[in-house]
């Protein structure tokens, strides 16, 4: 779908801040509130805007013990369906957060979330490596998250400018 200049603006703005009041968004792109609402609705209808979510730093929440791992998966692609079928079989698991087809030393990069390292290990050994097409897996646990999807987790946002200047 080809976007107009204004629609593109809206997408770019909402990608960074989905909670912007419609009135403010309208002002930023110089449209009326109605026109902006209509444009946003159209973007939603066409699944260009798929969903509005929050980026949460779970590590700040007391009692949180979740872990994340990136797993390099080597697979044997099947005639006719290529990597599609095995990718689908993997991403349908609710434990799986993301699946990417990669170039290079392995085929699929799978991101898993679990309550504990043990839970992730169980999933890899029982569910993932037992799949027919999977040849091998290498599991990397994520130790700390500094930046994710362009968002720095502990940003230094302090305004270092003097309060008034010419």
């Amino acid at each position, binding site marked *: 779908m080809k976007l107009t200049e204004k629609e593109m603006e809206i997408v770019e703005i909402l990608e960074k801040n989905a909670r912007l009041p419609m009135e403010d968004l309208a002002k930023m792109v110089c449209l009326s509130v109605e026109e902006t609402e209509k444009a946003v609705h159209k973007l939603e209808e066409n699944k260009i805007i798929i969903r509005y979510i929050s980026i949460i730093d779970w590590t700040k929440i007391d009692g949180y013990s979740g872990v994340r791992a990136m797993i390099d998966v080597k697979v044997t692609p099947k005639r006719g369906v290529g990597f599609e079928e095995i990718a689908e079989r993997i991403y349908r698991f609710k434990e799986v957060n993301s699946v990417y087809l990669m170039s290079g030393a392995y085929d699929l990069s799978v991101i898993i979330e679990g309550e504990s390292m043990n839970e992730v290990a169980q999933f890899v050994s029982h569910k993932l490596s037992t799949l027919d097409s999977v040849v091998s897996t290498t599991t990397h646990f994520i130790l700390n998250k500094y930046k994710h999807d362009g968002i720095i987790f502990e940003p230094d946002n302090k305004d270092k400018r003097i309060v008034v*200047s010419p």
Partner: protein
Amino acid sequence: MKGTKKTYLSKKATELKPSGIRRFFDLAAGMEGVVSLGVGEPDFVTAWGVREAAISSLEQGFTSYTANAGLLELRQEISNYMKKQFKVEYSPKEEIIVTVGASQAIDIAMRAILDPGDEVIIIEPCFVSYLPMVELAGGVAVQVQTLKENDFKILPSQLEAVMTEKTKAIMLCSPNNPTGSMLNKNELKELAEIVEKHDLLVIADEIYGELVYDEEYTSLPSIPGMRERTILVSGFSKTFAMTGWRLGFVCSPPEISDAMLKIHQYAMMCAPTMSQYAALEALKNGRPDVEEMIKSYRRRRNYIVQSLNEIGLTCHMPGGAFYAFPSIESSGLSSQEFAEQLLKQEGVAVVPGDVFGESGEGHIRCSYASSIEQLQEAIKRMKRFMDSLSLKID
């Protein structure tokens, strides 16, 4: 200086008025939780690639002087940049000097062209340094006031009205600080006619030349006949968010460049070396960051100008820079009173318009070089302030 009544200060220094911004800075600096729209610089931190290049230059030991006019490689890049972005060509070896901010460029320009008594037309409201720099260079500043009715654009007739035998130059800043007004190609052509007719020079401060949002920007020396009459001042502070690096440049025909370079070499030697390496990186690879910042400023401008108008602070849509310059007429206050009360009551810092010249009275300068969240908060507080004023009037 005990036991003596003699003052060691020069008459010039004694007579120099302190900037009106200073008082406001002192008021605001001690306060907690201030949302500031009073800042004349980008809120963006210099792009990491640029900072990294400076660090790397230090690691490699580039800590000595450069050529007086600046690194030749940097001047070459500036020349390419001016050609690409502003459609003007300057020779890196003869017509470009790298300076310590655009301010120093204006200083050496004034000192290079002014004899005692020479007049320079200052178009107000404007940046606070122009007038003192003319006077410090021995010139006479002749002020012309642009008007709200004309969106703070100077009219040729206004210039004609103050022209004398002694007029040597016009100090022009477009897009303008504090009004954000920008002269388009046709308006510059009209200006050019007067400049030629009266055989003048123009010191064109085009520091905000890339921060334009609607019309295409026209650089004065790109107008036929103007290249030979323009001292073009620009720099890295605004476009590349590099204020603290203190790096600007000045482009002019060889004869003027030679004179400015003499002053520059004795008074400054050269611009800071690490800043020059940073600037080199900014010109080579900083384009995506600049585009991103321009987009962001445009959205913020659209937001703040419409919001200010909604709460009764009427202003035109400024074509460039990052300032809105609303009228505060509806408040019934002077711009100093308005700014001071707004600061004390709601903790929002703006700059009273009169510090930029007489015609700035009745206005305030609101910088929108702040995050949209900060702008939203500022507008919320300003609305409350305006409501409290109308209650008092009722």
